[in-house]
């Protein structure tokens, strides 16, 4: 039975062929193929991880942007409110200051009016005194001994007139 009795020549050549095949493939092909396949598997794994991570980051960034936007809106509203408040304050202040200023002006005016009034009163009094003296001099030329006594008398009378008024 030829099939069951291994032929030496065939065994020999099979051995040689297999060893050659093994040496060639083990040296130049298999390690490279296995390494490449593993590298690619790693690359794909990394790619998937990276994609997931970047998606998470993107989601995160969106949330962050939204929160920033909300914050900015809040700030804007605050600023607007502050501005309105400040405006009102300024208007209020300006109004107060204007009132004070006006009061000052009117007070000054009153003071000057008062002064002018006093001045004019003095003037009038003096002139009235002069006129009265002249009149009295003319009326009572003989009775009046000294100038001084005459003036005191007139003043006394004038004071009486003033207090009556």
């Amino acid at each position, binding site marked *: 039975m*030829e*099939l*069951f*009795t*291994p*032929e*030496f*020549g*065939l*065994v*020999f*050549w*099979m*051995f040689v*062929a*297999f060893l*050659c*095949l*093994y040496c*060639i*493939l*083990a040296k*130049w*092909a*298999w*390690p*490279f*193929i*296995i390494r*490449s*396949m593993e*590298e*690619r*598997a790693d*690359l794909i794994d990394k790619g998937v991880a990276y994609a997931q991570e970047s998606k998470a980051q993107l989601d995160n960034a969106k949330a962050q942007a939204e929160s920033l936007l909300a914050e900015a809106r809040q700030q804007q509203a605050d600023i607007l409110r502050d501005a309105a408040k400040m405006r009102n304050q300024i208007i209020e202040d300006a109004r107060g200051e204007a009132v004070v200023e006006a009061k000052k002006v009117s007070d000054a005016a009153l003071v000057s009016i008062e002064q002018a009034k006093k001045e004019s009163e003095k003037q009038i009094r003096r002139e009235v005194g002069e006129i009265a003296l002249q009149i009295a001099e003319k009326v009572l030329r003989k009775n009046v001994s000294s100038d001084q006594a005459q003036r005191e008398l007139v003043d006394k009378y004038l004071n009486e007139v003033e207090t009556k008024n």
Partner: protein
Amino acid sequence: MKKAITAIIALVLIALAAYGYMRAAQHHHGTTEVNPKEIIYEHLGDAYGWEIPFAHDVRIPLPIIAKADDGWHCFMSCRVTGGETYEGLRINHGEQYNGKLVQVHADGSVSRPLDLSITKNVAAIVVCALLVIAMVFSVRNWYRKHGMKAPRRGTALLELVVDYVYTDTIRPILGKHSPKYAPYLLTVFFFILTMNLMGLMVIFPGGANLTGNLAVTMVLAVITFFVINLSGTREYWKEILWPDVPLGLKCPVPMMPFIEILGMFTKPVALMVRLFANMMGGHMVVLVLMLLIFIFSGMFGAAVGGATTVFSLAFALFMLALDTLVSFIQAYVFTILSTIFISMALVEPHGHEA
């Protein structure tokens, strides 16, 4: 519709084959005697020279290399395949050394020289080895050229198989040792697969029944045997020579060590016989189915032979399809079992069971 047309065409072809056979058999009636056993062994066995399709007597000559008593002889096989004696060598026919190259002595007796001829099987081994190299290097070159891009077409198929064998089989079993043993196991897998599939192809570059030849599977099994035992750890040898069994089983009569040592040899022998028997069986079934045509036609006439053609072709086609599956399965089984045996030899000392 398409399926129906295909079926009709197939039926017509088979019917034509049956009719053609019947006519031919009627024509040559009684001129050929069929010897099934001889035909089967001729097809399963080795030969000097490679038969080309449809021409039984035309063979591609192959070199004969033999060392006879008077030294080395080296010539093309076409000088002896016709039955001639060349340089004292001829192909013997008869009980002893049937179909083998023999040296003819002066007294007419014959003896077998040291025969290292490139026979049909050896040539087929070389063809298969070259094919494996071409396939594997196509994958390698793809990676070299295209880097990380996924391969396409045939290369993708090969890569799928490499990935299946390496990532899904070798790595889970061998773990950190896998880079060391993967080249051997992958080479074995692809070599066996190629030899199996090439054996199924009937015409020229294929047609040699390689893995169905005990010599071929024996070489593979012996190499696996050495790989297993040369990578055995101290623990592996301890488990063989001084296993963890009651002292009575190993001390006066080394019964367990004997069984373990026997186990060392039965593992590769099982690998060898499994692959051989599966592949040879597949080939033989197809051959027998084909021969049934001739046997029946010889027994019952050409018409019955013609009818048998239909059934034989259908069953042979089915068997060949099955053998294609078996080719892959057997290559895979050889590889995975070798992997498991290697992993068993790489056993590390485990904690002592209480």
